[in-house]
């Protein structure tokens, strides 16, 4: 299911899994991650699109009629790729602006509470940036 409810359903499902199952699900999402299309943005990505405080060097873009698209520059940033794929898959087309309603604690619901502070901040900033882009697009 797409949209906010679909994301909340996914979060609920992940919370019911043990650590290994959760990791397996999240790495599946990471494998499905697609970077921002080259016709939208090319490297080097503009600094103004950089997600602040994210160690994985993530850039966020708003594509009209499509939604938020990310570029994860750190090849080892698997968590960032997983979150990018989750957000990109759930908030597309007419439902793209629903991302503005994503609750702040979604990162912990998706990834668990065993994240380092730096990692959780980076992921939360990805969500915050996507919400800001959606808000500006409305």
């Amino acid at each position, binding site marked *: 299911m797409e949209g906010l409810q679909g994301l909340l359903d996914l979060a609920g499902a992940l919370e019911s899994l043990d650590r290994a199952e959760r990791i397996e699900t999240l790495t599946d999402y990471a494998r499905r991650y697609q970077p921002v299309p080259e016709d939208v943005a090319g490297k080097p990505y503009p600094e103004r699109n950089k997600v602040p*405080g994210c160690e994985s060097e993530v850039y966020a873009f708003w594509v009209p009629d499509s939604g938020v698209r990310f570029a994860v520059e750190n090849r080892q940033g698997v968590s960032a790729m997983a979150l990018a794929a989750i957000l990109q898959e759930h908030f597309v087309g007419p439902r793209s602006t629903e991302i503005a309603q994503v609750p702040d604690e979604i990162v912990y619901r998706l990834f668990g509470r065993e994240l380092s502070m730096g990692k959780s*901040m980076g992921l939360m900033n990805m969500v915050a940036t996507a919400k800001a882009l959606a808000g500006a697009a409305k």
Partner: protein
Amino acid sequence: MEPIEQRGYANPDRLVSTQWVADHRNDPDILLVESNEDPLLYSTGHIDVAVEIDWTRDLNNPLTRDYLDEAGFEALMSRIGATRETTVVFYGDRNNWWATYALWVFSLFGHERAKIMDGGRQKWVDEGRPLYQSVPNRPKTTYRCPPRDDQTNRVFRDGVLKHMQERKALVDVRSPEEFTGERLHMPAYPNEGALRGGHIPGAKNVPWAKAVDPATGEFLPATRLRELYETGARLQPGEEVVTYCRIGERSSHTWFVLKFLLGYPNVRNYDGSWTEWGNLVGAPIER
């Protein structure tokens, strides 16, 4: 980069190359440990015989903001199949940032047979070496360790205050923006959990990642490290040093460099770091 033994390090035996790991990873007294910032990375692939140590799950006690105790360390080491004689080789993502953190925690329990794989996980990948997803099944052991030593390689806030008042060397390894206090209000978190921005008075700012070659993730040779810390930050060779960052993880990387690669005899890591000092009532700061 020249071979490790030609880089002029004080303790070159604390670093091993990716080729050394490839050659020795199946030696019975060697245990490979992958320790990453990203909790998903190990499951996407790792060196075939490597076990995982996750900082938040395996080394940290979140209820006391402390590390695991002796019993916890003994249980961890027994579970991953280590003995006191086992040489643990750490590697991980982000230039071995979390690998050095894990090695530092091991040092609190006196497990000195510990090394870092130079260049970390990314160098292994860049060289086209294989990764595997199956988790190795290493036989469990019975590990016993001495009491945790919180004096030799670790320092608490009162010790830092005394160190600062005695005008001894402090190295702040955070970014320049954190050091100056410019970074005060990141989205959702004011200054990464601290009420004040700035640094401990007298500290020199040497961001941790400057100690590695950004192209390969390998540690710089000793001459370049001395330029960085002694010419640039004016540390005196052999002087007593305290390193800190935000929670002590980045600064464990610099602790490793100063202690083992440059051979400073007394280097301690302040793991309370800025999340403690920046909130501490009465503690002076500079901007």
